[in-house]
């Protein structure tokens, strides 16, 4: 399963949604996502500091496990293995939250 997951994420081309703007409000990083349907289902996404830093560094680029893991290795003293599994988890979370361009 894991192997298939990595394979999939590694080859899928995905970019962060350009319409979302990352903002710092007090100590928090947030993005307000205006719902586009008839009923107002606007959302506020909250990011921790690492996710916010990754967001800034991934803007406009293809988001791959390799790239995210590379960024994590740059910033933290982590093994390639750990960075890869964290990168995968982050991409999945972004996916679920609908933060990638359709």
């Amino acid at each position, binding site marked *: 399963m894991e192997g298939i997951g990595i394979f999939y994420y590694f080859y899928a081309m995905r970019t962060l949604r350009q319409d979302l703007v990352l903002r710092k*409000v007090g*100590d*928090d990083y947030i993005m307000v996502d*205006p719902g586009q349907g008839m009923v107002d289902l*606007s959302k506020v996404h909250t990011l921790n500091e690492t996710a916010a830093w990754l967001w800034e560094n991934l803007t406009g680029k293809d988001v791959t496990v390799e790239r995210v893991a590379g960024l994590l290795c740059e910033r933290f003293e982590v093994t390639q293995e750990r960075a890869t599994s964290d990168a995968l988890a982050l991409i999945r979370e972004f996916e679920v939250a609908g933060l990638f361009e359709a």
Partner: protein
Amino acid sequence: MKINPRTTLTSLFYEIAGLQLELRLSPTVNVDMLLPSFTGFRINVANDRIPAATVTLLESEPPEENEMGVLRSDISVVWGDNFRFYERENTFVTQIKHPVKEMQWVMESTRDFKESVIYGNAKDPRMGELVSWLLMVVFGQAGLQYQLILIHASVIAHRAEHGVAFLGKSGTGKSTHSKLWLQHIPETALLNDDNPAVRIEDNDQVFIYGTPWSGKTPCYKNSKVELKAFVRLEQAPYNRFTKQENMHSLIAVLPSCTAIRWNKTLFQTMTNTLSRIVGKVMVGQLECLPDAQAAYMSSKAVFGSKAAGHTGEN
């Protein structure tokens, strides 16, 4: 009888929250009768500034269109089932429907709401109410580019110096809470009861302004005070004030702000301004009863115990 709009329209100017609004209409309309709540906001001539928005009122039917555009909303507290909001390629269309076609009102606005044309029937007895409401729609969007947000709130001014805006869903008791302040907190006055404007000025100070729109309460004050706090109200069987920090401050105020969700630029501009505002103004949540103690509690939270007067210091 067809009126040629190019030759017969006159321009009137209003200044609301420091922004100019130009209204072009037939000189036969008695505008102070039509829009009495705007009278205190009239200015004689446009000074050198460009109006934030220009609205032209035409007493005619809207041009025939094959399709209205993409229906974006049909939810309006004021107009119920008769409200429609459409997005077209380069414009937004606000429609107030009526079973009689001649009684339908349509406004077409550029995407930034800087230019709008209202089509309607001058014989409609609802004309004043309709035009006032449509001007509010325009002002709420056009103001966003000037770091101004039209909010849904009841506002009191304390010592004609500081403002407190009470937020909450319709029916929560915003007006009731304002009234409790007027009764129990010394030196307070109502600034606006429904749709004040909040604006960050060039010196980074946040002000709240009275407007010509105040819901059911005729309180159309053309004045401003420095905004001290937003207080989101929630009905509860007790009184409790909780300060909201960081993202919670933004989330507490966001649902009370006007910005259409279908123009990303306007929406992001609004969120930008709001992020700055909540960094400078206190935000709190008040779970409350409709009683004097609730007013003492919120006034104490915002101004300290002295403002509440002797009764609040127990």
